[in-house]
């Protein structure tokens, strides 16, 4: 189930790079990069931390869309 996000957009609004964003939420630069690329889905705790730092709700930053194949199976 793909998880999409607007983290890069919110990060740009904050004016920080990935390394700085990582420091703000307590993770590595690499993790921020993987989240932005959609290659890693953060835990609830991390998603909440990110949302708090960005001054937005979790739903404003992260959302998911049902996989069409999974919908067919249901």
């Amino acid at each position, binding site marked *: 189930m793909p998880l999409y996000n607007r983290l890069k957009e919110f990060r740009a609004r904050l004016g920080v*790079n*990935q*390394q700085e964003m*990582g*420091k703000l939420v*307590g*993770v*590595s*630069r*690499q*993790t921020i*990069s*993987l*989240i932005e690329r959609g290659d*890693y889905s*953060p*835990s609830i705790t*991390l998603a909440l931390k990110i949302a708090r730092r960005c001054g937005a709700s979790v739903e404003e930053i992260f959302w998911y869309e049902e996989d069409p*194949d999974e919908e*067919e*199976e249901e």
Partner: protein
Amino acid sequence: MKKRKNSPRKTMLLFLLFLACSMVVGGLVGSMISIQQSTVREVLEFLGRQAIHYSGGAAAAVTVAGFAVAIAIYRRGRKMAMQWDGEDEVYIEEVEERLRMGLMTISVTMILVFCLSAMAFSQISNLTEETWQRILWPLFSMMATMVLLVTLERKFVELEKQINPEKRGDTFDFRFKKTWLESCDEQERAIIYKSSYRAFQAAQTAYPICWGGVMILSIAVDIGVVPYVVIGVLWLTQILAYYAEASKKHRR
């Protein structure tokens, strides 16, 4: 397109078929070895003598080659890391991939040198003036490997820490692996855990293959009980460590 799921009955039949084929193949190979027992024994003993004879030199060669490759990777990685602008994620991923390859080179080299040196040491029971010389080279290789590669491994880790300042741990500290893991975030730990489980699966496949191979070889050559004890200890250690940790996590 939907994937077809096998029924439990079909899965069990496939498994039983695989077991039966393995037994047949093992039986055939064992029979062939039994028929050609003396030939197989001569070939294995010849190969064993050659391996012991050349293992000292091989250990030295692997040390030099492994160190050369690892240091070339380190130098290139370091140069690339110094040129990183702090933003280009694709670039730094390439650098980190190189560092991972370098660390893998170091680990593989160390394992090969340890095993080759041990092969050379196995002739220690036949001490002669000539044998003493053959022992010196592998001894030197093993010590040189440990010093060179451990030092180089430290350099790789320090460079990794420069790229990722949140990382902690000193390679000379016995608690390095624990400290390093504690400094990893959830995503990095997930990679470590997944990689570790993949290694566990590979080892769980390798152990019965080694056990079967050694058992078949024992038809031709008297290998004693040591190989079975070693395989058993390693196999049990891994499986018990896995279940102990899993139980601990479930009880948390």
